[in-house]
């Protein structure tokens, strides 16, 4: 009996020891796995910051491509016109020279008149008549020449083109806000116009843009981040539209906030996708075409400014993104600097 109890106790001890050993092993496993997880986290974070960097480069590339197109057209005619005007002026100088020659022709007989007899005078009259005819012709040519008018018109176009180029550069500067960073009082309608110019090459041939912009109070915000939000929403709308469509942009003041909406007639968002659209790295686009960061950046920036993003969508009809921002900007402490990832 006693032996039986001892055996039982020993067995129990053995079992306990076994369990304890198991547990220790499990703990060791756990620690190892935790370390591994941390490693993976680090690697993921590194990748993430790399992707964010790549996204920045991609949107820079997109910007450059868009602006290149906008710049090359005015550059094309300005450059050509300036050269052509040079040629036109050369042509005009030739006309002036012909006129000068005709004037000379008219002046010559005056010297001869003084020592002239009757026969010589008759000859002279004929000569003068001919010289006068040439003079009139040369003058008429000068007067009817459209060279100067053409040159002036071309220079007018060139001047327009240069103004257009200057405003593009101004816009780019305004868009990236390289000259200032940090909080500012901003007219969001202006930022919107810059973003539209930058996104122009994606819209131009196929997406009609309808703007209903009401005058807005200035909003305290990080202007460059807001521009990024606009560009992302416009780009998304353009990509949602397959073929031709319309993008309607509205802005209006609502109490102490400003509301801006971007409505496209694109593919819309299906129910299974909708809950994930603001998740980082979520994308429905083929590999290489979207990073899945566009809307998550929008969300992060707007949150950082104490605002909100709402989406209303009907599959195959289109989506409307509405952002609401408080006029006084983010409350102290929650500074938009936290949204710096964008």
């Amino acid at each position, binding site marked *: 009996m006693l032996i039986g109890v001892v055996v039982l106790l020993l067995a129990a001890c053995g079992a306990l020891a076994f369990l304890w050993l198991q547990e220790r092993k499990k703990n060791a496993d756990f620690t190892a796995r935790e370390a591994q997880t941390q490693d993976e986290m680090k690697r993921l974070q590194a990748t993430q910051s790399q992707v964010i960097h790549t996204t920045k480069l991609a949107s820079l590339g997109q910007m450059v*491509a868009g602006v*290149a*197109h*906008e*710049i*090359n*057209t*005015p*550059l*094309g*005619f*300005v*450059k*050509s*016109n300036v*050269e*052509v005007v040079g040629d*036109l002026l050369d042509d005009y100088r030739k006309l002036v020279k012909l006129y000068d020659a005709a004037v000379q022709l008219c002046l010559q007989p005056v010297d001869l008149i003084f020592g002239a007899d009757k026969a010589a005078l008759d000859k002279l009259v004929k000569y003068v008549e001919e010289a006068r005819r040439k003079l009139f012709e040369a003058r008429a040519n000068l007067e009817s020449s459209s060279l100067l008018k*053409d040159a002036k*018109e*071309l220079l007018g*176009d060139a001047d*327009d*083109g240069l103004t257009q180029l200057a405003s593009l550069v101004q816009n780019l500067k305004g868009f990236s806000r390289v000259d200032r960073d940090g909080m500012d009082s901003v007219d969001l309608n202006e930022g919107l116009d810059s973003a539209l110019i930058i996104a122009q*090459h994606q819209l*131009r*041939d196929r997406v009609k843009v309808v703007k209903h912009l009401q005058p807005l109070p200035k909003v305290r915000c990080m202007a460059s981040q807001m521009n990024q939000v606009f560009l992302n929403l416009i780009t998304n709308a353009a990509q949602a539209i397959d073929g031709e469509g319309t993008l309607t942009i509205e802005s209006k003041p609502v109490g102490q906030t400003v509301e801006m909406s971007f409505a496209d007639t694109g593919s819309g968002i299906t129910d299974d996708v909708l809950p994930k659209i603001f998740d980082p790295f979520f994308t429905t686009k083929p590999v290489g075409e979207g990073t899945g960061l566009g809307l998550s950046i929008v969300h992060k920036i707007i949150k950082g400014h104490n605002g909100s993003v709402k989406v209303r969508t009907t599959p195959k009809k289109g989506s409307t993104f509405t952002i609401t921002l408080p006029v006084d900007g983010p409350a102290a402490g929650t500074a938009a600097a936290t949204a710096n990832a964008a």
Partner: protein
Amino acid sequence: MAGGLRILLVDDEARILRALKALFRDYQTFETTNPLEAAALARQHDVDVVICDQRMPEKTGVDVLRDIKETHPRALRILLTGYSDLKAVIGSVNEGEVYRFVHKPWDNTELKELVGEAAVIAREAPVIARDVLPTHEHDRARAHVGVLVIEHDTTVQQRLREILQPYYKVNFANSAERALQIMEQQETGVVISETNAGRSDLTGLLKALKLHHPHIATVVLTERANAQTVIELINEGQVYRMLIKPVRMGTCRLSVDSAIGRYWQLKQNPQAARRYTAAAPPEGGPNSSLRLPAALLNRIRSLPGRLLGVAKL
């Protein structure tokens, strides 16, 4: 067709039209900002050259030029664009069959020279209205004309073999060297080539081939084309078609069929080949030697006309 040379200018930006009109003041010019009326104007005024913008709200330049190619094939077509996306570039080859692809801002002297040449060619060189031949003649051409494939990837080669072998007299080469050997031995009318074999660039070969033998039709295969490479292949290589890999049987056969038709007709009508003259590569640039060894270039130059079916132009 008498009278001074006539040019049609199409751009949605009126100031570009005024600039070009002033630049071409020695020619008779017709302008429109509406791409929808371009084809009718080209026909109505029997123009020699069309200069057309790519990005316009109502219609793209490629579409305009394709229409003009159909309805007024005599005119040579130039696409003038501020920003070249790949789709437009490839469309300008396959659909618009453009003579040249020119960037904004353009160089006045170069553009004037280019248009002057194009207008003379449009006046003098006969037109090949349709590349597709009647069936019996196409069968004759197929039996006669060699199709040369330059491709180093064995899987793609195998795929092309399956598509082409049953229908054409086809040869395969995996390098420029081997390709030339084949061309020196038999009549080759169509060259199907990738842009590079392994690490060696084939675009130089394609350009040199077209420069010296403009009646050969080249079909270029590419995986991820770079717009600039394609533009160079248009201007300096007058490439006949661009095919994007993976190669699809239908498009591939269609392209080769019409390429054979083009070659066959140029063979009988060598003057028409002037319409497909490639531009000499820019002097002194990285392309000045076409990136080809002199020996290879000489062999291309002296490919026997007998084998190519036409006397050298």
